[in-house]
């Protein structure tokens, strides 16, 4: 702990003892046609922690996030979020999940025909049935959090990649999710723009937001994540606090992955 603080990182969040993990992935398998992508993945994510999933491209990281967020139907096992079973075919379950989980994508996926403010307020008014005034107030607040208070009237195409991604994060935040999922949110950005996005994520972590991120930013994962999960060929190969995981990989696969400089 003192080492982390000396290095200027936040103190690691401690899981609340006895509390149920906010996400429980149990023996999940997933296939696309004949291609099995997830082979019995199990993972628990504690409230208020940041979990970074790392691994080679194609190892099933995105698929796992998408299964957690009911964007893909799983073929076996179970996923529980906030104590509720996730099932894509159960409308009520998906609806509840949408109110609990936010997701940010690599390609931002802002709505190009709406300005920044409207991108953020759309679900507040349409889904949460808030008044336009309340929604606008929330939007301005979250834009402030991501450092874009002056961009409310801009359209997505007028933003840099880093700004667009921060708006996407603000759009998720506005809905006050209990968990945020990030899928390689800095991978499409120019290197000089990744910092501003990572900084927003670090701020969120410090404020206790539960976050699961798939990332290639090893230094960031090492410094900020509470738990790092290494996925390989559709399985969780190793998981643990970054200091341990990076210093002492148990498997040759992780050792090789770390030394390949990804």
């Amino acid at each position: 702990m003192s080492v982390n603080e000396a290095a200027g990182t936040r103190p690691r969040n401690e899981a609340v003892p006895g509390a149920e993990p906010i996400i429980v992935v149990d023996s999940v398998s997933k296939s696309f046609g004949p291609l099995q992508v997830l082979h019995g993945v199990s993972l628990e994510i504690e409230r208020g922690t940041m979990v970074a999933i790392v691994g080679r491209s194609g190892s099933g990281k995105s698929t796992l996030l998408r299964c957690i967020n009911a964007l893909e139907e799983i073929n076996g096992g179970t996923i529980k979020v906030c104590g509720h079973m996730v099932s894509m075919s159960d409308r009520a379950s998906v609806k509840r999940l949408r109110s609990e989980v936010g997701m940010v994508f690599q390609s931002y996926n802002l709505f190009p025909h709406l300005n920044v403010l409207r991108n953020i307020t759309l679900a507040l008014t349409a889904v949460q049935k808030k008044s336009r005034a309340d929604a606008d107030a929330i939007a301005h607040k979250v834009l402030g959090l991501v450092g874009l208070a002056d961009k409310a009237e801009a359209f997505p195409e007028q933003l840099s990649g880093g700004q667009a991604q921060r708006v996407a994060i603000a759009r998720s935040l506005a809905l006050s999710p209990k968990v945020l999922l990030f899928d390689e949110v800095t991978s499409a950005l120019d290197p000089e723009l990744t910092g501003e996005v990572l900084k927003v994520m670090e701020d969120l972590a410090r404020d206790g937001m539960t976050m699961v991120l798939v990332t290639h930013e090893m230094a960031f994962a090492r410094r900020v994540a509470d738990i790092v999960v290494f996925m390989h060929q559709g399985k969780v190969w190793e998981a643990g606090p970054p200091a341990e995981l990076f210093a002492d990989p148990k498997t040759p696969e992780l050792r090789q992955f770390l030394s390949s400089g990804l």
Partner: protein
Amino acid sequence: MITFSSTHLIYLIEAARWTLLLSVLAFIGGGILGLVLALGRVSEHKPLRWLSAAYIQIIQGTPLLVVLFLSYFGLSILGLDIPPIAAAGLSLTLYTSAFLGEIWRGCILSVPKTQWEASNCIGLSRAQQYRYVILPQAARIAIPPTVGFMVQIIKNTSITSIIGFVELARAGQIVNNSTFQPFITFVFVAIIYFAMCYPLSLASRHFERKLNVGK
């Protein structure tokens, strides 16, 4: 011998009102039904997809002339005596909807899948996704081909002359039959068609610019 005069011109312009009325009927009827068909084509429900696809195939595979005969003579043989304007409006609606349905389906499908996902993840229902996210983006893509097709429809309304409408093209023939001045007659006919089609192109460009603000 009668020469082409302002009387003939006024006659042509008056006939053009039929062209205009029939076109407007086609746009409104065909537009509404076309949207339903486009949504049917991309629906999650297989029977709906199948029904709208079948409808579009059948209508697109049938000449407008035949659709018109069927609605006018066909229905009257069945004992349904419908006035020519209803028969013409009906056939143009059926015809237009099949084409607009297919054009718009393509436009809806060309909105990236990621827009569906992003709007799904923030909790929008399927209807809300269409209303706030997908259709506004599809509309922008749809403008040029839709206007292109509308221009075709304006010209295609001339086919209703066979069930008795004296619309612009038919009126041109009638004037020519009495004046024997085909060149000047049909130059005026062409100018009037142009005067109806050109504003559509202008409006199209205007809307494209307006909708491109956010693009």
